[in-house]
């Protein structure tokens, strides 16, 4: 059936099977492979994207449920060649090793910082409960989010 939505601010129209999962649509139809398929059981969070601004697990959503929605994937975070502060934080604070969970971690962190510009460590851990990392032990991920929060707040102050 027909699906009309915007991905990373670009409008798209596609014909998809109703049973196609959003994550497969993003990767196989839209060609955006930054969103990863992890556990496929809504546990690991590797497939997290923003749907109308809210973090969701795209393995547990049909593409047709996103009809009319605005979707942001990890590819949509870069602006004018500049990494998003959360991406920069993961780079600067070594928030990844293998990188598999990273796109989902970043999208969940973007959702958190939109709701809470100055989260405590406990709030960051709570917000990332739905994202599993098997490499880092999470500590560097927390630091990456704190880096991003500081940068985004000081950017606002300067503006």
């Amino acid at each position, binding site marked *: *059936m027909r699906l009309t939505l915007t991905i990373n601010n670009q409008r798209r129209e596609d014909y998809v*099977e*109703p*049973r*196609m*999962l959003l994550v*497969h649509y993003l990767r196989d139809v839209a060609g955006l492979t930054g969103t990863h398929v992890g556990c*496929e*059981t*809504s*546990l690991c*969070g590797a497939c*997290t994207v923003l*749907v109308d601004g*809210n*973090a*969701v*697990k795209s*393995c*547990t*959503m*049909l593409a*047709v*449920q996103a*009809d009319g929605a605005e979707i942001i994937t990890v590819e949509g975070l870069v602006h004018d060649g500049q990494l998003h502060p959360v991406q920069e934080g993961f780079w600067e604070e070594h928030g990844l090793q293998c990188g598999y969970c990273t796109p989902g971690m970043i999208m*969940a962190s973007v*959702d*958190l910082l939109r709701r809470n510009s100055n989260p405590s460590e406990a709030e960051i851990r709570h*917000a990332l*409960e*739905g*994202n*599993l990392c098997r490499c880092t032990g999470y500590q560097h991920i927390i630091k990456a989010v704190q880096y991003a929060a500081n940068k985004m707040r000081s950017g606002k102050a300067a503006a």
Partner: protein
Amino acid sequence: MFPSEFEYHRAASVKEALGLIQQYGDEARLLSGGHSLLPILKLRLAQPRHLVDIARIAELGQIAEEGGRISVGAAVRHHQVHISELLRSKLGLLAECAGNIGDVQVRNRGTIGGSLAHSDPAADYPAAVLALEGEVRLESAAGARSVKAEDFFIDLMTTAIRPGEILTAVSFAPMPAGAGFAYFKHRQPASGFAIVGVAACLRLDKGGTCQGARVGMTGLGAKAFRAKAVENALNGKAPDAKALADAAVHAADGIDPLFDIHASADFRAELARVYTRRALESAVARARH
């Protein structure tokens, strides 16, 4: 993993959705947030030929106070329940429970109606809805009826919903002023499901005696239930530490506990007693505050 083939129908009204489930009968399933249904479809545990999406029906997305009752539409998402000012002020237990479901991504998609209709034995909402004595509204082509939460949960993933009915809302009387409440759970660390979850609310009279204690329990048995032995042991007593501990001992009375790789039956029963005591202690502390 993806579901077997189905036709997708997006209903614009309850009436349209009722028509579709009447037309397709057993071959149709209702889809709301999809966080119970889609995992089942992906595992091919169910292979319905038709999905009727009710998530965009405007009236199912409302939280409203009318005639002294508060109604939460079936398609209201967990996150909306968690942050609703109305629910936080008048049904704090429900809002607290919603904030403990799964994780952020799940709370952004999952809906209260879907959770209740699915009636997973490890779901969080049933405990709070039981403790708040909620009433589930079921609509069919023949009309609407209300079912008390206690009569709604029948067995493992089995509810009072009849073929041709849609769960459209759940409604509550506001909690009494000064009520204390708490939702405590032992989480399955990956999924966030409740291995055991306890929802408690109560109030203290002028003499400091516990009144109207209600305890909803999930995760322990095949269905969520009211722990009435705990309530009876508490009502009319001064809720000191010993009274709360003595009441909590009855949390698993008469229940045949579930067991799985996460917790044996004995461990689940012990968790139920411990988390009941903690929930009661927290509810009493809040009632005194």
